[in-house]
């Protein structure tokens, strides 16, 4: 098993690609299954946003729009500081399967490391480190 830079999931849906496309690429669609609220400017480079009742909001940037087969966007990793520029890339691929759709989602970019990570480690980042460490330890201690 390699380092998981990538997550891939496929799901068979009993609805035609056009309907799935609308659920993925419109504010109404996204708010109905993904976020609690959504906004989207559907064009490459356009911005999109989803927020949840919990208060969490994620900003997205639309990257690929090839109706009705490919929809791609990048978004921020919740685990990184808000001003961290690293993002993962999410791509949905829709293929007709009988009267329905085979939908594949691939998210990549988890193994990114900042070029200056090793330098930065010497120079600081000690602030906030204790809490990061605590979280990691909790992960490990969890039954």
């Amino acid at each position: 098993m390699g380092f998981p830079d990538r997550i891939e999931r496929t799901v068979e849906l009993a609805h035609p690609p056009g309907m799935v496309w609308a659920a993925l690429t419109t504010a109404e669609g996204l708010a109905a299954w993904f976020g609690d609220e959504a906004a989207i400017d559907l064009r490459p480079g356009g911005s999109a946003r989803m927020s949840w009742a919990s208060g969490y909001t994620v900003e997205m940037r639309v990257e690929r729009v090839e109706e009705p087969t490919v929809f791609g966007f990048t978004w921020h990793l919740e685990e990184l500081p808000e001003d961290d520029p690293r993002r993962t890339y999410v791509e949905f691929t829709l293929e007709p399967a009988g009267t329905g759709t085979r939908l594949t989602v691939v998210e990549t970019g988890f193994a990114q490391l900042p070029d200056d990570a090793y330098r930065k480690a010497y120079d600081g980042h000690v602030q906030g480190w204790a809490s990061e460490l605590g979280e990691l330890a909790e992960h490990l201690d969890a039954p």
Partner: protein
Amino acid sequence: MPPDLQQDAGLEAVAEQVFTALADPSRRAILAALASGGPATATDLAGRLPITRQAIAKHLALLAQAGLVRAEPGERRRVRYRLRSAPMKVAQQFLAALARDWDGPLGALKEHLDRSAAG
């Protein structure tokens, strides 16, 4: 091996060393002490933690091997150890990938489509 797979294997080895290092409560205590108090010698740490100086030296050697601490140049007894967070970040990315859950949202999408088709 293609370069990207080689890199993945290298990152996984880093993550594995971090998890091994963190699996021990004494090593976690040492890292937490360095994180909150800044660089310290083995003797300093022995004064602050309920761990013997010998055990601390052993743990520090393992932590240095994992790249989580770095020994600053100095006389043998006065070597100060400093945290390095880079390997921890690799491990964090590993956990982030595992934690990102697509099964939940895809299940919700399925239900949404069924509901809108029925409605």
